[in-house]
């Protein structure tokens, strides 16, 4: 049956191309970013990117230093991760080890709902609720700070961290737990000294993936961080993240202008950051056998 073979071949190629589509898209995006950003190296020169001032609209001299944007993104990401880690991991431990099956059935859908809240809705909530709260709590001038953005981003990272950590904890063999309990360890000791360390690689990977989500988030941070491009590691100052800069300024630029190319460089840096975070977490997961080789 020649036709049969032909048909299965066609279907195979079709499936193959679907499978490799995402690789092709990633490559094309990267090439496109490089192509649009490249002329910047010739004029005004790549050194312009390493200045400390981002001031793309000026009557004197436009400056495209992306350092403040990088520090802004890094500050917000680190803060958000620090906030999200305890909630995410303790939550995962509770759901997988302590909660009754009924509780689990009840809790898990809510985590999924939290993951599904559109970021602009979260941003609005942050602007109206979290920002005034943080302002009052820390007695500062304004609630539009890096910390406010980090709190919102933590809300987004928590579901990621929680669900992947939970998988990791579940995949710890029950004999570990049984052995520990048999040796007379309490339930709490078993969880913190046996189960969590055994699942650590998966937990680390979940944190990395959560960070990847946080670095790339745009709308919520744009609405609450104040967007002032200053270099600062103080959580109570306003910062401007890379994502917010691209979102706010991409519309205004003329195609091919220096500002346009500078924004593409910001995009490249951002892509490299998320890509490396994803690579690291993939490596960790693979090393400990949580992803099939």
């Amino acid at each position, binding site marked *: 049956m020649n*036709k*049969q073979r032909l*048909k299965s071949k066609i279907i195979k190629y079709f499936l193959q191309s679907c499978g490799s589509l995402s690789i092709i898209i990633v490559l094309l995006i990267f090439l496109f970013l490089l192509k649009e950003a490249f002329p910047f190296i010739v004029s005004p020169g790549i050194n312009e990117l390493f200045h400390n*001032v*981002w*001031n*793309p*609209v*000026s*009557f*004197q001299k436009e400056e495209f230093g992306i350092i*403040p944007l990088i520090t802004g993104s890094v500050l917000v990401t680190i803060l958000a991760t620090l906030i999200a880690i305890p909630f995410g991991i303790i939550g995962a431990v509770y759901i997988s080890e302590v909660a009754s099956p009924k509780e689990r059935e009840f809790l898990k859908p809510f985590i999924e709902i939290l993951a599904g809240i559109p970021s602009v809705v979260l941003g609005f909530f942050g*602007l*109206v609720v979290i*920002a*005034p709260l943080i*302002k009052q709590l820390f007695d500062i*001038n*304004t*609630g*539009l700070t890096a910390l406010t953005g980090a709190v919102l981003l933590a809300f987004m990272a928590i579901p990621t961290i929680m669900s992947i950590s939970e998988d990791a904890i579940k995949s710890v063999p029950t004999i570990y737990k049984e052995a520990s309990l048999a040796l007379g360890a309490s339930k709490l000791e078993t969880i913190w000294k046996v189960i969590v360390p055994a699942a650590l690689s998966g937990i680390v990977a979940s944190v990395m993936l959560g960070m990847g989500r946080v670095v790339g988030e745009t709308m919520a941070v*744009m*609405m609450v961080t*104040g*967007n*002032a*491009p*200053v270099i600062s590691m103080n959580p109570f100052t*306003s910062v*401007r993240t890379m994502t917010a800069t691209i979102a*706010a*300024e991409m*519309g*205004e*630029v*003329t*195609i091919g*202008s220096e500002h346009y190319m500078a924004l593409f460089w910001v995009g490249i840096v951002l892509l490299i950051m998320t890509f490396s975070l994803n690579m690291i977490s993939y490596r960790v997961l693979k090393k400990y056998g949580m992803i099939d080789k």
Partner: protein
Amino acid sequence: MKNSKKYFPATIKLTALLLILFVFGVAGCSKRDKQNPQNKKSITIKGSDTMVHLMSTLAEAFMKKNPEVMISITGGGSGTGIAALINGTTDVCASSRDMQQKEKELAKEKNILAIEKTIAYDGIVIIVHPDNPIKDISMEQLKKIYTGAYKNWKELGGPDHPLNVLSRESNSGTYVFFQEHVLNKENYAPTVKLMPASSSIVQSVSADKWSIGYVGLGYTKEGNIKVIPVKKNDTSPAIIPTHDTVLDKTYSIARPLFLYFNGEPAGNNKIFLDYALSPEGQKIVEETGYIALK
């Protein structure tokens, strides 16, 4: 061949049919778009956030009278609108500032002839929280606030609290106009917070007691805010922005609002412009909180 039907089940046939329809559909669409750009029945207007309310009210009234014309309006900032006009992605650009030399050159490179038409006036209003005791502010003080020379309300004769300075994003026409006419083309201080919209400035000023911000006249009706009168210099009187003070230019930060066209407006673009300038259109300008030309 008798069995050929078996090899192509209904689902595959359907998919193929859909694909073919899709390809033809796309081809059909692009063909239609290329026909007579001047006579097409839709106008896209893009640009100033300050003017969005005005433009959409104008467009609504216009479409009621001319139901065959569709107008779609997007904000995004004057800079965004001008860039869209230069990039050829909008028919009309609404802008709260005039085009800069650099933008004119870019437009020329791309064979776009930008024609400017003034349709209304607007005042930029300085707003603070109602509990702020500051009574008035001079242009010089504003400049020092936004360039970062002043950091505390004390320096303006107020209480000892750090200034929380709010501005629009750099794609806003108000941002550039303010930079040109209040900061005398100097740069904003990096500590100035850039807010994504005029309404978020109003929101933030009503929430944070020691903030200062600027918005268009049309935004002063909402929120828990106080409008601060502005002095041209230390000795001149403090002027509150109103219809009259903006129109006779005694208020220092007044500006025209423009529509930009690619080439002299013709066809529907011209009908729309004429409508905006007609007594009826100018009445809408006043009703939406802006200032009519006469």
